[in-house]
């Protein structure tokens, strides 16, 4: 017999019955996109505090949005000026390349050359600008949507693609789901795929750097949805207690597959504000503004390197593409929603800025895109020569048993024999 549901307690007449609040996004498919809840301040209006500022003195910075590029594409305010024209052009090329890479790999998945892909469309500025504010030796603990960290530092596209194709040249030997790269030499920690776990590991890596008297810093990455995981809160507690050199990045792209950021608690407070309870300085930044991302990243990285402790940054952005190739966002949000996103497109904004200051042109942009498209296509062709998931050479079954332990124990040798490889 099942336990009976207790009967409702009859409320006194003065108390209305309780009801449960279940957040819903402003609009669902068929509705008119509405981002009126995203309050966007004018660019250049948010102050840039000194590096050694106390967390308590910048609480307001967790409730606003740091922006550098204004509507006319001019760089304004305290946070402007962290990059020269060469640095800006490098960033623009990195973003264009990330977008081209995504397009090519999406097509490869559609053609059956791999099982799975995840694009970062609309979020390219965050990974690219952040990476270009780091130093060699620093370590990112990324999520699956930070391919820009590798692409911005010109890590070989062919290596990334071979991993995606799980082919004979896959540096990870076909063991990992496509896009779960690992690149130690590039300061890119192995992506787990279990959400949030890497956040607290980044804190541990940074603690180790401090224990050893090193000067290297760690960057933790997480999405708005995964901030609900206990790993996020453990990371903030440890970062608060030991003050290691770590930047705690939250990429708030509004959507965790089909659940809006409200289901992760974004309705009641900003994600940046979560740092306040831990006494960690926190910024909220326009993630589609390359200049703002670079300036805020540099601020937090400099703080970390000078032993001033952790910084949390919420990057406000929008996931333009589907969550993954297994997802269809038209089922849960209006198709035109990304067009209505108030922070615009990061590539267009940086391009317009560079043109505005006379350091770029539509012609140069078109030429750069053509060159990069060709570079990505050439890389794809080379990667495909080493095999794709279902055709061509791939890692051996024998290799499946290697690397579980440093030295293969007897039971794995027996099982390998049983498979006959």
């Amino acid at each position, binding site marked *: 017999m099942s336990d009976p549901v207790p009967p409702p307690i009859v409320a006194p007449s003065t108390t209305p019955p309780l009801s449960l609040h279940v957040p819903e996004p402003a609009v669902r498919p068929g509705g008119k996109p509405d981002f009126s809840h995203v309050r966007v301040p004018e660019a250049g209006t948010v102050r840039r505090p000194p590096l050694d500022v106390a967390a308590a003195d910048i609480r307001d910075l967790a409730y606003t949005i740091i922006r550098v590029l204004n509507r006319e594409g001019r760089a304004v305010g305290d946070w402007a000026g962290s990059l020269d024209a060469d640095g800006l052009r490098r960033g623009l090329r990195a973003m264009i390349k990330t977008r081209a890479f995504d397009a090519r790999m999406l097509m490869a998945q559609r053609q059956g050359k791999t099982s799975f892909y995840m694009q970062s469309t609309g979020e390219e500025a965050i990974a690219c600008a952040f990476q270009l504010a780091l130093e060699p030796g620093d370590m990112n603990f990324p999520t699956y949507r930070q391919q820009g960290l590798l692409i911005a530092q010109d890590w070989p596209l062919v290596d990334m693609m071979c991993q995606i194709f799980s082919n004979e040249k896959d540096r990870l030997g076909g063991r990992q789901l496509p896009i*779960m790269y690992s690149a130690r030499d590039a300061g890119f920690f192995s992506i787990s795929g*279990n959400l949030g776990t890497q956040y607290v590991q980044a*804190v*541990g890596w940074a603690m180790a750097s401090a224990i050893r008297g090193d000067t290297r810093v760690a960057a933790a990455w997480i999405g708005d949805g995964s901030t609900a995981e206990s790993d996020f809160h453990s990371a903030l507690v440890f970062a608060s*207690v030991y003050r290691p050199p770590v930047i705690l990045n939250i990429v708030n792209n509004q959507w965790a597959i089909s659940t809006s950021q409200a289901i992760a608690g974004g309705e009641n407070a900003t994600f940046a504000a979560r740092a306040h309870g831990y006494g960690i300085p926190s910024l909220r930044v326009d993630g589609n503004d390359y200049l703002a991302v670079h300036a805020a990243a540099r601020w937090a990285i400099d703080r970390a390197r000078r032993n001033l402790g952790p910084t949390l940054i919420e990057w406000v952005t929008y996931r333009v593409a589907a969550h993954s190739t297994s997802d269809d966002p038209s089922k849960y949000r209006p198709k035109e929603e990304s067009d209505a996103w108030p922070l615009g497109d990061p590539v267009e904004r940086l391009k317009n800025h560079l043109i505005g200051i006379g350091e770029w042109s539509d012609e140069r942009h078109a030429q750069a895109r053509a060159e990069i498209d060709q570079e990505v296509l050439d890389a794809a062709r080379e990667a495909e020569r080493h095999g794709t998931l279902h055709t061509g050479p791939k890692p051996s079954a024998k290799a499946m048993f290697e690397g*579980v332990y440093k030295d293969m124990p007897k039971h794995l040798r027996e099982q390998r024999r049983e498979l006959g490889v």
Partner: protein
Amino acid sequence: MARITMIEAIRDAIDLMMARDDKVVVFGEDVGYFGGVFRCTDGLQRKYGRTRCFDTPISETGIVGVAIGMGAYGLRPVCEIQFADYVYPAYDQIVSEAARLRYRSAGEFTSPLTIRMPCGGGIFGGQTHSQSPEACFTHVSGLKTVIPSNPYDAKGLLISAIEDDDPVIFLEPKRLYNGPFSGHHDQPVVPWSRHPLSEVPDEYYAIELGKAAIRREGAAVTVIAYGTMVHVAEAAAAETGIDAEIIDLRTLIPLDTDTIEQSVRKTGRCVILHEATRTSGFGAELSAQVQERCFHHLEAPILRVTGWDTPYPHAQEWDYFPGPARVGRALKAVMEA
């Protein structure tokens, strides 16, 4: 040679490794200033400083999570989970992260962690201070699981665990911390000083992981045990007069199947002991291994003597704990079969 307790042997191993390798760092709840609730890290913070031995927040997820990050950096973390019963918040970090990091990164990143935790019953700890969760770890590829039964092994195995480049779950039967335990809870406590395996050299020595020890040679029946149950098996053999061969596994993964196979082929009978709950326990794996390897040598069904499939009770501790009387009955049963 000094006669010391299991606690002192564990502390000795950590101390020695901290002195030999400045990349060894030690942390956990109450581990630093206070030296651990069981005193296994007593004095280490004073000796090595607060950045090598320190207290952590009460967050097992955090303890193991930061240990993984430190390991990826190049340190050799030795972290303590205050009781094995508290490890579950860290389970995702252990199973999905530490255990698979080498594999998924093709060796770019590794997890040379030692995760120590007191386990097992016999101290009236109730359901939150008595569990034996070893099977939760032996089921996970990429982990090694170690459980010593005496001070000599504790030191040598812990040194090997700390030196190992893969993650090691190091289970410490807490009822054995201060003395061997036959399961006769109504008899006076015996100190380690009366047991020969409390003689522990001061200097460094390592016991290879994956090698069992034969505690008692015998011809009639093979008893496979580990941790506290090794001592219970010895008592049961003495009390029944059955010539049992008692294997102390010491390491569960990698498992020393050679020693098991050799013994069962000789005796033709096998009894498997553990404190943990029976269903899907490590005894099930041992039983399967024995029948796969020794079926034609078996003269009786393999028996298991284990904790019952209930949460670990408080008042009924001695009805739950698989003591020498139950083990003795199983020995007689396989001899009569």
